[in-house]
């Protein structure tokens, strides 16, 4: 009998040994390396074309991945997904400035879709080109938006899509389109078909508050960085009208247009007006007379001096609006204990340092606006995104005592 007892005992021991070999059930998880700080466990960026990665008048997978939020996430060491758009883009970026040709031979209306594999469940960059302060929290279909609104957000608002990611940290750069389209048109009041006008301060604050309230409702956000609106009057696409009196400038403009240009008497060497370079395109297309006027003419003939032109009064109005927006954004950041970043400071430094030329070199096919502004004269280049990301990192680190490493300068 003892032999049998030994056998039974042996069997029990065998079973216990094998049972003990059962392992930790989660040891085989492929867990991403943790972020540099738990604050960045889930980072979401809201905004417009600057944040989405629009460059040179277009956007595609390549430009999307050059955008500052992607760089920030990379440095935070946190997973980050973008709504990858198939090459050549929607629309394809301009690849040669004087000719205006675009990647892949597309046009400004070419639009490819999302890549098949990009149907991600969680989207981290929910910014949409063209979005103004009204858009992030407003029901789809009530604001602006085009195909990109659908392709990026898929039927939800920026706030809704952001909350899907259960964000712990957000960056918000919204408000440029509350003033930029009107400024570019030269008409600051709302004129259907010509200008959406400048969003009033009250409306901007209401929109911004609605967005922040929507984000707060998610209950997951522990921090963020709010980014001020760019003073669009400083956009490189504008050049000072007085420059036409400098040697060689007018001939260069005429060469670009391909026809002689008349300088109206409203322009003087001391004028403060600035002119949108798109005026030259309009001249080329025959949509505008080959005349540069620096103030709205008395009879408003052909929009001369009004369309594509901002005079000193209008520049002051735009600047005042942007300053008011930014004061509110900064106040919001302060109230929430978030970081704030004013992009106008480095923009001014680049202009003063000549890295963003006062007058673009119209003969340059790839860098008419310098290294930091892409071929559309508005949007940051890849190099500028690196610069912006580093400045934001400094602001975040200062606010939260974190240690996000900066990127190597391009």
């Amino acid at each position, binding site marked *: 009998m003892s032999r*049998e007892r030994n056998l039974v005992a042996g069997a029990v021991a065998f079973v216990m040994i094998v049972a003990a070999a059962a392992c930790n059930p989660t040891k085989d998880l492929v867990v991403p390396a943790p972020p540099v700080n738990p604050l960045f466990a889930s980072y979401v960026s809201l905004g417009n074309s600057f944040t989405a990665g629009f460059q040179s008048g277009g956007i595609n997978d390549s430009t999307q991945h050059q955008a500052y939020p992607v760089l920030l996430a990379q440095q935070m060491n946190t997973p980050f997904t973008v709504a990858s758009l198939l090459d050549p883009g929607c629309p394809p970026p301009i690849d040669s400035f004087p000719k205006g040709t675009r990647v892949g031979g597309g046009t400004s209306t070419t639009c490819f879709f999302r890549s*098949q594999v990009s149907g991600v469940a969680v989207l981290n960059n929910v910014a949409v080109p063209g979005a103004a302060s009204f858009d992030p929290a407003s029901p789809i279909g009530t604001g602006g938006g085009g195909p990109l609104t*659908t392709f990026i957000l898929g039927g939800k608002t920026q706030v809704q899509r952001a909350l899907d990611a259960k964000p712990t940290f957000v960056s918000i750069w919204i408000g440029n389109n509350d003033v930029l389209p009107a400024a570019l048109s030269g008409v600051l009041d709302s004129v259907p078909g010509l200008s959406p006008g400048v969003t009033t301060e009250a409306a901007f604050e209401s929109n911004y508050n609605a967005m922040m309230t929507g984000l707060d409702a998610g209950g997951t956000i522990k921090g963020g960085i709010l980014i001020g609106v760019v003073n669009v009057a400083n956009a490189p696409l504008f050049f000072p009208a007085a420059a036409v009196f400098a040697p060689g400038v007018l001939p260069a403009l005429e060469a670009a247009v391909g026809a002689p240009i008349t300088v109206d008497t409203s322009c003087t060497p001391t004028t403060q007006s600035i002119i949108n370079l798109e005026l030259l395109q309009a001249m080329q297309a025959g949509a505008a007379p080959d005349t540069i006027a620096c103030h709205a003419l008395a009879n408003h003939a052909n929009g001369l001096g009004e369309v594509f032109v901002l005079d000193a009064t209008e520049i002051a109005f735009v600047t005042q609006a942007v300053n008011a927006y930014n004061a509110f954004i900064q106040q919001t950041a302060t109230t929430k204990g978030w970081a704030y970043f004013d992009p106008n400071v480095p923009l001014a430094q680049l202009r003063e340092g000549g890295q963003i030329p006062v007058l673009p070199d119209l003969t340059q096919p790839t860098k008419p606006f310098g290294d930091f502004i892409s071929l559309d004269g508005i949007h940051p280049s890849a190099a500028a995104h690196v610069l912006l990301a580093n400045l934001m990192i400094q602001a975040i680190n200062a606010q939260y005592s974190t240690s996000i490493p900066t990127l190597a300068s391009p």
Partner: protein
Amino acid sequence: MNVFRAPTLVMLVACGAVCGAHAQGFQLNEIGSCAVARGFAVTASPCKDPSTIYWNPAAAASLEGWSVYAGVAAVKLGGGFTADTSRTFSASDAPLSIAPHVFVNYGSKDDRWAAGLGVYVPYGLTSQWHSDFPGRFEALKASLSSIYFQPNFAYRFAPGWQVGGGPVFAYSHVELRQSLDLAQQEAVPGLTFGQLGVAARTEFARAKLSGSGTAVGFNVGVHGTLGADWEIGARYLSPLSVHYDNADATFSQVPTNLVLSAGNPLNAPPGTPVDGVLSTEFAPGQPLSAQKVSTRIKHPAQFQVGLGYSGLVTTRLEGDFEWTQFSSFDQLPIAFKGPASSQSRTLFENYDNSWSIRVGAEHAFAVGIKGRLGFSYVRSPAPDETVTPLLPDVNRRNYMVGFGIPLSPRYTFDAAYLHVDTSGRRGRIADPTSAGQNALDLNSGFYTLDANVLSLSIRANF
């Protein structure tokens, strides 16, 4: 607008098929409490009850007179899925399953022949997940109930040696519930909603497939003695090809609350609710209307061989090897009989053969009480890229313990407890999006799986 894309229904049916064919995965073999307690190692030295009609049809010849064996096994699956990125754990929601078994046998007084009938449920489990489980687009619920009816005849053709067997008539019912992902559906030909920006795993419908099928096969065995102390046995259960000819596929819409913006490729006005666009697809005659679908699932063959030792005075020992031909589960013909009939196709699977090693012991105590102990190790047939919510199949370790108590000279009560233990396994919760993706590309988390089984049986001899 055509928002329906063929793989929706194909996957629905395919998932049901895979569930049915996951015999090793769901095959807890909870057929008879004595066999369960002995680690399923009962081919050579069978339990002295009619459940041997399943375990080794030949050995039924050694049972004298009328005998009946009936009982149930209660099976509770546990486990869940932990996502890599979020580390979020989604627990399984599988309900308690009850699998009955009934065997009747009459053996001649001279142990020369026996005839009997077995009714048992070799596949009877359900995998089920909570409604917010991210893998619900693979499976929200998958259940299979297959009842086998096996008439049996056994014959002793030489002293100590018997053969036996009989046909197996199978009735199988399968049910699958699955969420449908809008991102995978076509908005316009060649363009999915995912390419329009709709997030992956946006649930817009739930599908239910329910169907029944039958099949005929056979189960045969041989049993013999090798001297006074050794026994040997083997059984072979043929493959059964179950035809689910009139399965019902039904769909119900789930609101997405998505809205189309201006400039959308559907050319719908800005502000158009997506749900309104989709609702037409559920109307009678439309792709997501109720329809019939059929398929055929080949249940793999099983072979088990064992060696028993009874040289000890009061203890019997046995070790078995079991092999299941899952490689035969290679094709799934899917035939739609409704608006999706043009989408009929054949799917190809890639399961490996599986095997298990089973060991068991039975010790006789005083007054006829018997204590039993068993262990088996099961090698999963599922390749690394096919570990899904339907059944996150994994190598298993089964630990069994049980006893038998004589209630009277005529009746005996058997009980067994079985714990299924695994080390878990990496798996996926979504379908491949392109050909050539391997487990490294697909698997996004870790499945755990365990089960507890309580089996109770009564044996009566007349």
